C-alpha cells in the first residue's frame, strides 16, 4: 500500500494540477473556482473539506440568505431583544434580570433515514445551542410532521422519532412541554422533525461564539471524535488520499444523552466561575464550523493542532476529524490562567477536555497535522463569505386553480345527525385526536417548574420560585394553509402561536422559526419560500415580535413532489406570575362560555375539509394581525385580573374541537347555543383566525363584557359548562364517554 504525502499547504502550492473531488463533496464548479481564487492556490484536502461543508446549503444558507435578510430589515423595535439573529440562538430580556434564549431547528433528513438517532441528535444539537449562549436549558418542544397516519412507513418512522426524542430529552432531564404532531400524505418520505429548546440565564451570563485575546487557549471538551456523521468528507479521505481505507461510515450521528447531561453541568459550572471567554458547540460541520466561526467572530486568528483531538478511532484522517459530526462536543476559549481550573471542572464531571489550539494575533486560521500545516485560511471566507444565490422564483401555474377550488362550496351536513357524525369524525381524525400516546413518552415534570405542558395551548415554565416569573412557548404551523397561500400561511402560523401564548396568560415577546420547504432549485418552491418569509417578516413587524433566529430546511421533497410549504413558528412569551396562568380544561360547572372574535364562513385548508372531503383548495382564513393583538391583550388582562378560569384558542378543527378538548381535560361537559346570525355548521367548524373560547365565573361576567366592549372586541355568549356531555342545543349531544373514546382511541389504535 502506498501513501500519498500529507497534503500540506506547501504541497498544495507545489502541485497546482492535482485534481480534487470537489464535485463529490457537493461544490459547484464556480464555487470551487472561488475557493482557488480566495486562497490563490488550490486548496489542500483539509481546506477543501472545510469549504465544502461550510458552504453547503445547511451551513451557509446560500439559497435562503437573500430572503432571510428581511427578518433583520423589518425587525420591529423591541427593548426585549438582547442578542439577535446570527448567534447560536437569540436572547430575550424577560425582566427581573433574567434572559431567555430559545430556538427551533430541523433534523428532518436524518430522522427519515434513522428515526431514533435522527430525532435524538436533533434534541442534542438544539440543547447545545442553548448551553453555548450561557443558559441552563429548561425545556424542549417538538413540532413533528409525518406521512399519512395509516401509511405503513409512518409506523416505522413515528415510534422511532418519538422514542428518540424521549430517550434523549428524558435522559437529559429536560421537560418536554409542547410541540405538535401533524399527519399529511405530503410528508411521506419527508417527515419533519423540528426540535426547539429554551434556556434561562441572568443577563450578565450571556456568552457568545467568539475567540478573542491573543494567547487564550482553545479547549475541545466532551465526547471523543469518531467517524460518525462524516458524510462527504469520507469520499475525500478514502478515495483521494488513502485508497486502502474503508469508505463506508455512518452518515447519521449517534447520540449519547448521558454524555450531554455531563456536558451541560460541566459547562454551566465553568460559566458560573467565569472561566469562559467564548464558546461554540460542535454540530453540523463539527470542528470545521466551530474553529472557523469562533475565529472569524473574534479579533484574532487561531492555530489548532489536530493531533491533540481525542479520537474514538485512531485511523481517522485529518479531513475526517475536521468534518466529523460526533455528538456531545463543545469548544471553549479560555484564558491561560484559567485553563487548569476549567480542566479540573471537566475532570470532576468525567468529561474529557483537551487544549487543541490557541488564539493568535494574526487573522488566519491555521491547522496542523503531524507537524505539517494543512489549513491556512481567512476564517471569514469559510464561515461567512460563502456563495449567495438569487434563485429564480415564480408563482406556480397551479396556484390560481388551487385557490379557485373553493372549500366553502363543499357539501355541508344536511341534518343534525350528519353534523353529529362529522363532529365525531373530526375529533377522532389523526390530526385532531389526542396525542397522549406520544406525549406520555416524554417527561414533562423534571426540574419541577413545569406549570403547563401539552396539550395546553402553550408550555409554561416557572423561572423564579420567589416571584413566580415564567415563560411560555408555543409552536405552530399549518402546511395546508401555507400551500393555499404561503404569505398568509406564514402569518397564520405566527398568529396561532402568538394567540396560544396569550391564551395561557403570557405576553408574546419574540419569535423563532423553522422553515421547512422543498427544493430551492424549483422556482415554485422558491416562490413559496420567498412569500412565506415576506409574510412572516411583515407580520412580526406589525405584532412587534422580532425573529431572534431559527433554521431553514430545504430539499424536503421526493422526486418532483415537495412537501407543503411548512413554516413552523415558535413564539416566546413572558408572564409575571405563573399563578395567573390560564389552562385549557374547564374548571367549574356553571361557568359561562364566551366566544371571542368573529366567525366567518372560512373552510379553505380546514380540518373539516380534509377529514370529511379529503379536500385542499380555496383560500386560508383571513389574517387580521390587529385583531390578534387585541385578542391577546384581552386574554392577558383577563388572566391577570382573574376574570377567566379557562381558555382555548380556536384554530384547526374550529370551535367544536376546542370545546371538546376543554371538556375532556376538565371532565366537565358543555351546553352550547348556536348564536344568532350563524348556522350550526359554521359555528362549529369554521377556522376563522383571531378567536378563542373562554370560561368565565358568573361573578366576572359583567366586568369581562365591559372590558371587551370598551376595547372593541366582539364577544358572544355561547353556553355554559355543564353536565356529562357536549350538547349543541337543538342539534345533538355527545356524551363525554363517547367523545373520549373517539378522541383518545385513534392514535393508540394506529400506532401502539
Amino acid at each position: 500500500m502506498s501513501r500519498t504525502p500529507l497534503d500540506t499547504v506547501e504541497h498544495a502550492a507545489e502541485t497546482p494540477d492535482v485534481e480534487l473531488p470537489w464535485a463529490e463533496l457537493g461544490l459547484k464548479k464556480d464555487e470551487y473556482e472561488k475557493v482557488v481564487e480566495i486562497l490563490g492556490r488550490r486548496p489542500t484536502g483539509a481546506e477543501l473539506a472545510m469549504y465544502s461543508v461550510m458552504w453547503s446549503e445547511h451551513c451557509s444558507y446560500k439559497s435562503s440568505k437573500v430572503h432571510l435578510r428581511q427578518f433583520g430589515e423589518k425587525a420591529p423595535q423591541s427593548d426585549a431583544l438582547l442578542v439577535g439573529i446570527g448567534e447560536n440562538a437569540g436572547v430575550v430580556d424577560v425582566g427581573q434580570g433574567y434572559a431567555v434564549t430559545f430556538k427551533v431547528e430541523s433534523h428532518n433528513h436524518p430522522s427519515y433515514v434513522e428515526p431514533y438517532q435522527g430525532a435524538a441528535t436533533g434534541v442534542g444539537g438544539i440543547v447545545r445551542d442553548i448551553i453555548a449562549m450561557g443558559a441552563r436549558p429548561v425545556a424542549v418542544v417538538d413540532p413533528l410532521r409525518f406521512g399519512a397516519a395509516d401509511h405503513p412507513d409512518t409506523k416505522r418512522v413515528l415510534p422511532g422519532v418519538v422514542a428518540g426524542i424521549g430517550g434523549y430529552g428524558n435522559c437529559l432531564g429536560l421537560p418536554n412541554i409542547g410541540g405538535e404532531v401533524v399527519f399529511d400524505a405530503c410528508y411521506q418520505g419527508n417527515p419533519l422533525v423540528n426540535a426547539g429548546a429554551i434556556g434561562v440565564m441572568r443577563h450578565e451570563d450571556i456568552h457568545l461564539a467568539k475567540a478573542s485575546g491573543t494567547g487564550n487557549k482553545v479547549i475541545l471538551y466532551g465526547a471523543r471524535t469518531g467517524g460518525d456523521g462524516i458524510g462527504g468528507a469520507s469520499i475525500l479521505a478514502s478515495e483521494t488520499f488513502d485508497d486502502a481505507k474503508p469508505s463506508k461510515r455512518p452518515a447519521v450521528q449517534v447520540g449519547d444523552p448521558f454524555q450531554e447531561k455531563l456536558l451541560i453541568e460541566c459547562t454551566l459550572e465553568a460559566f458560573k466561575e467565569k472561566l469562559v471567554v467564548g464558546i461554540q458547540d460542535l454540530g453540523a460541520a463539527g470542528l470545521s464550523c466551530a474553529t472557523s466561526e469562533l475565529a472569524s467572530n473574534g479579533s484574532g486568528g487561531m492555530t489548532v493542532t489536530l493531533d491533540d483531538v481525542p479520537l474514538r478511532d485512531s485511523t481517522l484522517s485529518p479531513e475526517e476529524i475536521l468534518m466529523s459530526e460526533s455528538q456531545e462536543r463543545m469548544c471553549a476559549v479560555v484564558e491561560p490562567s484559567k485553563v487548569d481550573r476549567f480542566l479540573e471542572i471537566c475532570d470532576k464531571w468525567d468529561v474529557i477536555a483537551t487544549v487543541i489550539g490557541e488564539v493568535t494575533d494574526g487573522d488566519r486560521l491555521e491547522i496542523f497535522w503531524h507537524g505539517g500545516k494543512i489549513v491556512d485560511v481567512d476564517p471569514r471566507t469559510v464561515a461567512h463569505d460563502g456563495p449567495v444565490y438569487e434563485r429564480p422564483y415564480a408563482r406556480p401555474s397551479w396556484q390560481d386553480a388551487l385557490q379557485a377550488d373553493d372549500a366553502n362550496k363543499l357539501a355541508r351536513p344536511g341534518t343534525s345527525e350528519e353534523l353529529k357524525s362529522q363532529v365525531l369524525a373530526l375529533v377522532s381524525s389523526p390530526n385532531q385526536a389526542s396525542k397522549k400516546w406520544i406525549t406520555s413518552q416524554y417527561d414533562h415534570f423534571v426540574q419541577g417548574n413545569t406549570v403547563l405542558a401539552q396539550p395546553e395551548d402553550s408550555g409554561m415554565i416557572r423561572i423564579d420560585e420567589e416571584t413566580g416569573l415564567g415563560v411560555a412557548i408555543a409552536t405552530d404551523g399549518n402546511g395546508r394553509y401555507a400551500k393555499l397561500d404561503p404569505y398568509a400561511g406564514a402569518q397564520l402560523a405566527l398568529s396561532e402561536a402568538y394567540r396560544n401564548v396569550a391564551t395561557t396568560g403570557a405576553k408574546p415577546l419574540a419569535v423563532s422559526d423553522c422553515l421547512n420547504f422543498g427544493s430551492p432549485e424549483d422556482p415554485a418552491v422558491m416562490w413559496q419560500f420567498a412569500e412565506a418569509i415576506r409574510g412572516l417578516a411583515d407580520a412580526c413587524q406589525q405584532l412587534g415580535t422580532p425573529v431572534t433566529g431559527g433554521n431553514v430546511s430545504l430539499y424536503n421533497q421526493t422526486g418532483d413532489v415537495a412537501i407543503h410549504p411548512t413554516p413552523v413558528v415558535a413564539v416566546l412569551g413572558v408572564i409575571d406570575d405563573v399563578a395567573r396562568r390560564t389552562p385549557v380544561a374547564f374548571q367549574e360547572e356553571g361557568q359561562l362560555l364566551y366566544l371571542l372574535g368573529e366567525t366567518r364562513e372560512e373552510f379553505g385548508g380546514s380540518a373539516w375539509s380534509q377529514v370529511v372531503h379529503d379536500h385542499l383548495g380555496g383560500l386560508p382564513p383571513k389574517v387580521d394581525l390587529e385583531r390578534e393583538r387585541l385578542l391577546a391583550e384581552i386574554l392577558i388582562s383577563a388572566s391577570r385580573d382573574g376574570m377567566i378560569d379557562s381558555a382555548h384558542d380556536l384554530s384547526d378543527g374550529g370551535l367544536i374541537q376546542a370545546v371538546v378538548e376543554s371538556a375532556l381535560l376538565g371532565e366537565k361537559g358543555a351546553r352550547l347555543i348556536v348564536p344568532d346570525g350563524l348556522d350550526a355548521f359554521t359555528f362549529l367548524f369554521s377556522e376563522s383566525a383571531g378567536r378563542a373560547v373562554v370560561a368565565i365565573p358568573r361573578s366576572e361576567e359583567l366586568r369581562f363584557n365591559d372590558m371587551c366592549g370598551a376595547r372593541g372586541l366582539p364577544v358572544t355568549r355561547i353556553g355554559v359548562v355543564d353536565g356529562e356531555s357536549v350538547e349543541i342545543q337543538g342539534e345533538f349531544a355527545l356524551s363525554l364517554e363517547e367523545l373520549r373514546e373517539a378522541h383518545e382511541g385513534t392514535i393508540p389504535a394506529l400506532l401502539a
Partner: protein
Amino acid sequence: MTARIGVVTFPGSLDDRDTQRAIRLAGAEPVALWHKDKNLHQVDAVVLPGGFSYGDYLRAGAISRFSPVMETVIEQAKSGLPVLGICNGFQILTEAHLLPGAMLGNNHLHFICRDQKLRVENADTAWTSDYVSGQEIHIPLKNMDGRYVADEHTLDELEAEGRVVFRYLARGGATNEPGNPNGSLRDIAGITNAAGNVVGLMPHPEHAVEALVGSGRTDGLPFFTSILKKLVNA
C-alpha cells in the same frame, strides 16, 4: 431545630434539585452529596433521586451502586439511616441489595410519564408516617424500566411482613387507563426493608409538592414531612 437531609448527585441524576426543593418546602435542610465523596456530611437521612445515573448503561442503577458514596450509604442504612430511593434511586437500592427484587423494562416497552394513582399500604415507615394506611394518593410516574419483579417467595414475604408500601391503582372515573402502568408484579409501586428505614418507589413524590407546578397536587409532600417529624422528634 431541623433535620439535614442529603440528596446524592450521581452523573446523570436529574431530579436532585427538585428533591432538594421538596425537602426545603417540607421545612428540612437539603444537603447536596456527591457520588465521588464517601463522606455523608452528618446528614440525618439520604435521598437517592431519580434520573439516569451513568446513562442507565449496563442496567439501571448497576454502576451507581458501586460509587464511593454508596459504600457509606449501604453501611449506614444497615444501621438505621433513613434512605429513600426514588425511581432511579429505587433501582440503585435494589442493585445494592438494600431492597429485594429488581426493575425490568416496562411491559409496553415505552417510557411512560403520567400522574399515577397509588394506595398507601404501609404508613409506618420512616418516609410514610404522615399518610394513613389505605390512603389513595396521586404521584407522578415517569420511567422506562419500572416493572418491579421478584420471585414468588420474596413477594409473599413482602406482603406477609407488610413491606409493600405503595400499590398502583386504576384511576377510575372517565378515563380507562389501566392502573398498573408497567406490569409490576402484584401492582407493587414501592417497598421497604424489614426495619422500615429504607424505602424505594418508582413514582416521584418530589414532583407533587406544589399546587402550581408538576402534577398540580401536593400528595408527595408527606414523604418529606414524615421524615422531618421523625428526625426532629427523635
